[in-house]
């Protein structure tokens, strides 16, 4: 069925929107946006208010804390071990230095004693 041309023109004629139409549309759009945000917030809150998830979150946080603690303690132990090793090496160096100095002094001491004894023996023989 085809509409007569006049009726078609009448139907498609330009009409002014009812008063307050634009404001109503804008208000609706704004309302929709707020509703969406609220919905998202509610769903997020829902997620965390579920008991299992809540406990899982607490558990995960505890695990992170414990792992961090272990990591920190391990680091401290490593640092202490490294310091001990460096200290031991320094101690060995110190003892080596004293040992060398001591042994050379002993050589000198022995030679002095040896010479004085030889001189005394010579004197006795003479």
């Amino acid at each position: 069925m085809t509409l007569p041309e006049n009726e078609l023109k009448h139907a498609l004629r330009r009409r002014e929107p009812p008063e307050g139409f634009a404001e109503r549309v804008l208000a609706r759009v704004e309302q929709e946006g707020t509703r969406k945000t609220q919905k998202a917030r509610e769903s997020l809150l829902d997620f965390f208010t579920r008991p299992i998830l809540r406990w899982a979150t607490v558990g995960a946080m505890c695990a992170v804390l414990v792992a961090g603690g272990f990591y920190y303690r391990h680091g401290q132990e490593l640092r202490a071990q490294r310091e001990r090793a460096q200290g031991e090496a320094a101690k060995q160096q110190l003892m080596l230095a004293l040992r060398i100095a001591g042994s050379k002094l002993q050589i000198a001491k022995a030679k002095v004693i040896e010479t004085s004894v030889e001189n005394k023996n010579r004197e006795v023989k003479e």
Partner: protein
Amino acid sequence: MRKTLLLMLLLAAPITARAQEFKIPPNIDRLSAKAKETVEVTMEGPMLRWASKFLSAEDPEEAKCAKLVQNLRGIYVRSFEFDKESAYSNEDVEQLRALVHSPEWTRVVGVRSVHDGENVDVYFKLENDKMAGIIVIAAEPKELTFVNIVGPIDVDQLADLGGEFGIPRLDTSSAKKGDRR
């Protein structure tokens, strides 16, 4: 006259400063290129104190070491062991001895052994009649050692350490026994 005095003071200042700062002979480290084994120990104030913290009070030898080093300011050792004799020259040794030729150092022992070629010089540094340092220069056929200990030290205790740490003590008493005969 005043200018001459000033010039003399200016000339003497570096010499005095060098004598005070003298720790390790310059150019001694070049001998390590010829050496089979080299021992280099350089320990000064804080490092020395830190190292001595690791000396155990329960171990008698370590306790002795701790007591010995408690007032020291520095320990410097350079020891070179060579494969063959004459790896270092007499000039090398003389250069070391020349460094200690200053009024503050007194040569207390000078050993020259033709028999086994062991030559040892021991120098003491005295400050207000107190021991302020010791330098040992030991030139053996295959070994050259320089030791500089800065600070007050008990020489007898140090010599005692020479026979510890698994190194046999030199039997100085045998010579005394020979004396009795």
